[in-house]
């Protein structure tokens, strides 16, 4: 029972390392792409991204083409800035419209891209100009009812 450093120590270290990696992967990266570099980044400014979460899907015609990489607040305009990681093999024309939609009635929010007709495609890091923020259903309904009353 002396502390001898040998094969067993090495195996022990290896096991701890393995376990640490497993924990790290689980906690930090969750959905880590084992092969990187297959996406490029686009950004977009929305008046509201209420309900959208990091990791939400980015879809074209209902087909997933990427996901939301980060959501931040523009400190000046107080609008919401999102960055999307779009799959390399999907080209996004520059006149694409991005809108925040809800899947079904009570589902998650996602970003829908409606590609335009332009033949110029956005490059990594560029910004989508035309955006539509999330719909404030509650607001609409109350507005609808109030207006009726008048």
């Amino acid at each position, binding site marked *: *029972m002396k*502390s*001898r*450093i*040998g*094969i*067993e*120590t*090495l*195996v*022990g*270290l*290896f*096991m*701890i390392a393995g376990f640490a990696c*497993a*924990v790290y*992967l*689980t906690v930090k990266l*969750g959905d880590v792409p084992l092969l990187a570099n297959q996406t490029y980044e686009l950004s977009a400014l929305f008046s509201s991204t209420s309900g959208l979460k990091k990791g939400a899907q980015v879809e074209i015609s209902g087909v997933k083409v990427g996901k939301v990489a980060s959501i931040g607040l523009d400190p000046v305009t107080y609008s919401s800035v999102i960055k999307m990681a779009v799959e390399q093999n999907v080209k996004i024309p520059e006149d694409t419209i991005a809108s925040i939609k809800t899947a079904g009635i009570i589902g998650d929010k996602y970003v829908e891209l409606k590609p335009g007709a332009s033949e110029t495609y956005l490059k990594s890091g560029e910004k989508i100009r035309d955006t539509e923020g999330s719909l404030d259903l509650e607001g609409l309904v109350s507005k609808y009812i109030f207006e009726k009353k008048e």
Partner: protein
Amino acid sequence: MVTALGAWTIKQLNDLGRVGRFLLRCLFQIIVPPYKLWPMVQQIHFIGAASVFVILFTGTFTGMVLGLQGYYSLRQFGSEGALGAAVGLSLVRELGPVLTALMVTGRAGSAICAEVGIMRNTEQIDALTCMAINPYKFLFAPKFLAAIICFPLLTSLFDVTGIVGGYVIGVKLLGVNAGAYLEGMYKSVVWEDVYMGMIKSLCFAVIMVWICASKGYYLHLNKAGFGAEGVSRATTQAVVLSSVSILVCDYFITAILL
């Protein structure tokens, strides 16, 4: 103080490494010939066939409890029809593999640890060594193989009886629509769920045998105590450690595969 910490660290690392090497050796001995069928069949009988009764029982009652509680929860949302899906998903994904593993650990794992520990204590392992028989091959390889075979099968049994238990309570007693129960379940449980359950049960099989056997095998290095008390304490430790590891592992598998 620093030295003591260092010594302690090295000791812990060594303990861990020893156990790791134990696993490697066992797995190696599973691969190399000669293969013998009969010891494995015996172990399947012990780990698997002899656990069927408990598994059926726990499966049925787990399913019944799930059915009962699921019914009362879902009723609040007016969707009793989702009972089948709820029962099926919880069983196949989570409760099936985990409870099966816990029950088998309690039943067979403790017995494995006690058996190996008693063999260590009564010098049977030394006797094996002196007869130039490899204990990893002779003792542990059949256990690992048997567990790897039995766990998925037992989990399947558990899942199915659980589903039946939920059906009996939900459909027969509480009047949920039979069609909604079954079709809803078939629809919401997908291959990935079944697959995840199977993956889990395989991992749990390895964990269970690994921890229980190694706790028994390294009994003499453990300061737990001597004789019967040592064995009983090692058994307790093994069961606890296995159960905890199974739950931890369950968490990680769920998090990664979901």
